[in-house]
């Protein structure tokens, strides 16, 4: 316990404000997701497939936020765990285990274990070498899945996956209703867990390590243990996101392990802002909606406009959208303060 209390001290009050991570903010995120999602279901009942897609991407980005935003481990291969989860869920269903909840749990556990093992590789070296190791790990898994065609179906993917109705009641439908509410429930649970984690002594210790690993170590925090656990948890959550995708689309292909997916989720997180949970969700929503809107306007050149948008965003908001929002709020507060000052 002692090391965790010291960790609380290590994260100074100033930094706490900078992260904006008091518990009410986290609860607010839960409410925002729930209300936003229910609003979507009410007003856009024909857009639920897209909404489910956004939720899964948000969950995937949240898992990376735990690894990158909290533990400070730079990763270019996070899709390795997402894909592992997807294949575990898909293969279980193909083998006859069609109950979705336990299948999803299995996906999370296997990906989490893989994450734990992989984390020992990540303890050595710093950012650049971690980038290389995660990139290599992702590519190795992708090629392994391609080679193991007898198990994974190779480039053709896993077909004929059937999933039982959730709790024996809700069958997966063409409108994506079940997929949507299923993804929503899982995402809300995950956010609740992450909010709890972020404000726990463990979460504070993680942030201390991210701020300055050497100082955190001097304060008595077991840096290695914290990083291993955080990476394992992040990998597990990514596996659950992958499992969700496999179960709701009832198909798994090599794309789930592709480098593009790792890059995309990193982009989403940076777009939203890392290290505060809000960013992952905001980033996923903005990225997917921008993608959809641009692709519907210009089906050939949307990638160009999306790229332009990202460049502009990075120029003006290097901390992502949540960073920009915080800056604006801060400036407004200062202006309000200045206006009040002369009169008082």
């Amino acid at each position, binding site marked *: 316990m002692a090391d965790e209390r010291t960790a609380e001290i290590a994260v100074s009050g100033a930094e706490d404000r900078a992260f904006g991570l008091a518990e009410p903010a986290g609860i607010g995120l839960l409410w925002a997701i729930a209300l936003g999602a229910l609003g979507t279901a009410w007003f856009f009942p*024909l*857009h639920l*497939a*897209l909404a489910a*897609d956004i939720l899964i991407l948000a969950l995937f980005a949240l898992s990376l936020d735990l690894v990158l935003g909290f533990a400070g481990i730079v990763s270019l291969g996070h899709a390795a765990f997402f894909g592992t989860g997807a294949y575990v869920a898909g293969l279980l269903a193909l083998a006859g285990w069609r109950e979705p909840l336990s299948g999803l749990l299995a996906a999370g556990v296997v990906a989490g274990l893989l994450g734990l093992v992989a984390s020992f590789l990540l303890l050595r070296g710093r950012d650049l070498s971690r980038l290389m190791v995660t990139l290599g790990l992702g*590519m190795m898994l992708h*090629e392994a899945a*391609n*080679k193991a*065609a007898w198990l994974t*179906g*190779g*480039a*053709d*993917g896993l*077909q*004929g996956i059937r999933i039982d109705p959730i709790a024996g009641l809700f069958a997966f439908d*063409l*409108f*994506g209703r079940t997929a949507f509410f299923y993804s929503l429930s899982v995402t809300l649970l995950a956010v609740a867990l992450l909010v709890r984690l972020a404000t726990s002594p463990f979460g504070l210790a993680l942030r201390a390590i991210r701020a300055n690993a050497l100082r955190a170590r001097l304060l008595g925090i077991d840096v290695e243990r914290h990083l291993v656990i955080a990476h394992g948890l992040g990998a597990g959550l990514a596996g659950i996101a992958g499992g969700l*995708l496999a179960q709701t*689309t*009832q*198909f798994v*292909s*090599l*794309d*789930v392990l*592709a480098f*593009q997916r790792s890059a995309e989720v990193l982009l989403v997180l940076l777009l939203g802002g890392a290290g505060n949970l809000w960013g992952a969700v905001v980033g996923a929503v903005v990225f997917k909606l921008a993608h959809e809107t641009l*692709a519907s306007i210009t*089906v*050939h050149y*949307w*990638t160009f406009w999306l790229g332009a948008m990202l460049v502009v965003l990075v120029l003006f908001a290097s901390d992502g959208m949540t960073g920009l929002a915080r800056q604006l709020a801060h400036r407004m507060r200062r202006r309000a303060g200045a206006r009040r000052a002369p009169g008082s």
Partner: protein
Amino acid sequence: MRIDRRGLLFGGTVSAALVAGGARKARSASPLKIGLVLPMTGPFASTGRASETAVRLWLEERGGRIAGRTVELLVRDDTGVADTGRRLAQELVVREGVDVLMGFGLTPIALACAPIAEQAGKLMVVTAAATSIITERASVIVRTSFTLPQATLGIARWAPKNGLSSAVSLVSDYAPGHDAEKAFEQLFTAAGGTVLEKLRAPLQSPDFAPLLQRAKDAKPQALFVFVPSGVGAQLMKQAAERDLAGAGIRLIGTGDLTDDDILPQMGEVAIGTTTSHHYSAAHPSPENERFQANYQRLSGGRRPNFMAVGAWDGMELVARALERTGGDAEGKKLVEAAKGLSWTSPRGPIAIDPATRDIVQDIYIRRVERGKDGELWNVEIDRIPAVADPVKAGLVR
């Protein structure tokens, strides 16, 4: 309320107009919505571009109508990713209410979308993806492209009869490559040839040099190659550097190797390469000449390739099936109507096998030659008529 003559007349006119209006609406019907799911961006964008151009050309020539109904085209970019493609197909069905799903550039995407089409009861026309199993994954799928074993059959049967009885196969190490390797070995052996060695190149950034050297050392009469479209040029260049032709080794393969879309840029090294495929832009027929000229006009000088002709025939299939059903676009009825259809495509005569819903077509043997215009063309030198998918026919196991 008094009923006078004027009132009666007025009321009668209004109701007559309403009835007539209603009748007209029923006759011209709502537009036929066709959803195209294709890779429009990313590494497979050329497939999407060629297919879309061909579909637009078809519509332009028919005045934008099919069986008296106007056509509304909805193009969606699947970016070459299966789960994206699946969601887009789902949205096209539930949100846009499309009557027909068409396109599908890559096998995993077609396979991921198959359950959607089946569940929604919509006709799904596969105009590009070429893995044999696709049509078996849903009863509403009809294919107008080709199957890889079908294209392989041509060269595998032709080679032993034309002095090439020993071969080494070289394929990319992924599912379609494995399919090509298997189909070639079985069909080539059945036709009296011997496969000396089977080589596989990694899919990602392949270096063919060591493999080509091994192929050369095995001293075959032919080297059979299957690599994804686009990689072929690099392979041919390396084959020329190792002087395979000088060692008496002929380069053979399926038409993907000398895709008409990129053949003009391949240069001297491609000359002499012999492939088998279902479509060459140089196919001598009035249908193709017209298709060729109009396509070049619409695409800014690009040649139509097998992706383009697949999409063109996809539209032709929908039109012919819809005429048979009298404009009824219900999925099952359209599929039934599509079974057994046959027509002359720019590629030559084709038919839809009523038993498998897969395409039956002539497979041509083509050699790359420099044409009178100074450009490279796949010149047809032989033809194997009415080839069905060899996998479904039990020729390849």
